[in-house]
């Protein structure tokens, strides 16, 4: 594959870095080259937190990008800042829990996810990041879904293993939303 990338962005504490890390683990397990580059510094505490994950079959060039193939946004400041930087034809996954606005990118596939509700239904309200990751994976199939689930089990192992099923469920709920959105967009385009 030529390579793709995604920017996960939200408030600190929403689990964006973990979502990116799970994606990176999944990609690495699939034999892809991968880089995971977080924003760092004081803004991590309560401010915005974001991470860029690049995936490719060739060595990754710049791990830092100003244009993205995909954006996963969990708050309005992130959407406003980064939606304009998504490449034409890209994917924007947004969390309707905190974002009511439209990204105004008719040239992109927009996936709207009610992450809080889906996470709650899956059994862990905190797993909204997993729902968002699922929506991204379901919409793009950047990595095989099973590889992400393996990464989730890897993250939630040992004492944390009891959280794994609900997190997988949250991920799957997101996958369905992502896949539906892409199908709907395809139908509309056709």
């Amino acid at each position, binding site marked *: 594959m030529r390579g793709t990338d995604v920017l996960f962005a939200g408030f600190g504490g929403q689990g964006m870095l973990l979502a990116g890390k799970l994606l990176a683990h999944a990609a690495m397990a699939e034999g892809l080259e991968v880089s995971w580059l977080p924003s760092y*510094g004081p803004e991590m505490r309560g401010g915005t937190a974001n991470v860029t994950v690049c995936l490719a079959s060739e060595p990754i060039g710049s791990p830092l990008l100003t244009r993205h193939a995909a954006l996963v946004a969990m708050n309005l400041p992130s959407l406003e800042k980064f939606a304009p930087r998504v490449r034409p034809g890209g994917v924007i996954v947004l969390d309707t829990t905190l974002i009511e606005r439209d990204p105004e990118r008719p040239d992109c596939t927009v996936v709207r996810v009610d992450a809080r509700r889906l996470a709650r239904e899956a059994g862990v309200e905190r797993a909204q990041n997993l729902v968002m990751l699922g929506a991204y994976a379901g919409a793009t199939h950047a990595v095989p879904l099973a590889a992400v689930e393996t990464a989730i089990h890897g993250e939630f192992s040992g004492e944390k293993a009891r959280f794994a099923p609900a997190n997988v469920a949250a991920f799957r709920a997101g996958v369905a939303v992502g896949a539906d959105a892409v199908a709907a967009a395809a139908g509309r385009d056709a």
Partner: protein
Amino acid sequence: MTKILMKGNEALGEAAVRAGCVHFFGYPITPQTEIPEYLVKRLAQVGGTFVQAESEIAAIHMVMGASGVGVRCMTSSSSPGISLMAEGMSYIAACELPCVVVNMMRAGPGLGGILPAQSDYHQATRGHGHGDYQVIVLAPSSVQEAVDLMGLAFELAERWRNPVMVCADGMIGQMMEPVEFADGDGRGPPMPPNDWALGVREGRRRRIVNSLYLSPEELLAHNRKLKAKYDAIAATERRSELDAGAGGYDVLVVAFGTMARICRTAVDELRAEGLRPALFRPISLKPFPYPELRRALDAIDGDGPVLAVEMSMGQMVDDVRLAAEGTRRVLFHGTAGGVVPSPDDVAAEIRAALGAAVA
């Protein structure tokens, strides 16, 4: 060997342990704090020494003490902390002791910021403490290369009895990438016995680790000895990489560390458009690969220029000029403060350079 997804800072720490370095002395500073945080746990597993020093000044002198008694040791810091280590670096180099210093560069001057920069290039390559001394400086551009260069750093430090600096930027430290370590998962072997380290004497003549030479003739002799060593290092330890592309090139981009990766993306995009840029990446910043760069410069088609790209206001570009010796137009693009040039920025600069070459 299996790949592990690791943050650059942690991977550097692990690489040190595998290189047999189990003595760490350091002081917290963003963006390298994960190195001590990782090592405090890891060194406890392998029976090593971890000391959180009271300052970077103390840390580098602790390194001097440990190195002087013949153990493999290191410290790590970021730009303002490295400034404080200037004194110790001069002493350690003067005493010809081996050690590794990691500088996870952040933006300056002064307190500056905590975001990535390459603005310590002059500091790293021009000695940065007082007196005629040099340190070997290695600049990784990926987490894997950071791991590989850490191993090399200890090797060179002991081969040349000299400090070696691994000079990366905050991005390398904070980024996660898959890494592979050489076989074995424990600590590497200790420093072999030598004829200079202090310690238990067991009947041998006493040894002195010293940098004071009150006789000017003796100090000159010491300076000449060091210079001969630096010349030998310059002759044998240059490391660089040239991606000339296929069928010649019209412009040469020069960049190191993370900046070289960003340039790589720009170069790939431009090649896809049919343009012909090439990319030269110094891996050893000291010794700077002047001959290799000169050959690459001489191979630019026509009177095409060279473009140095840095996360600074222009420092490595001085060495590019030295390599060019006036034979090429030397262009520069850089940003500082933690604002990192994007692939688009770089691509635009390369286009402009090519346009200028045509005009």
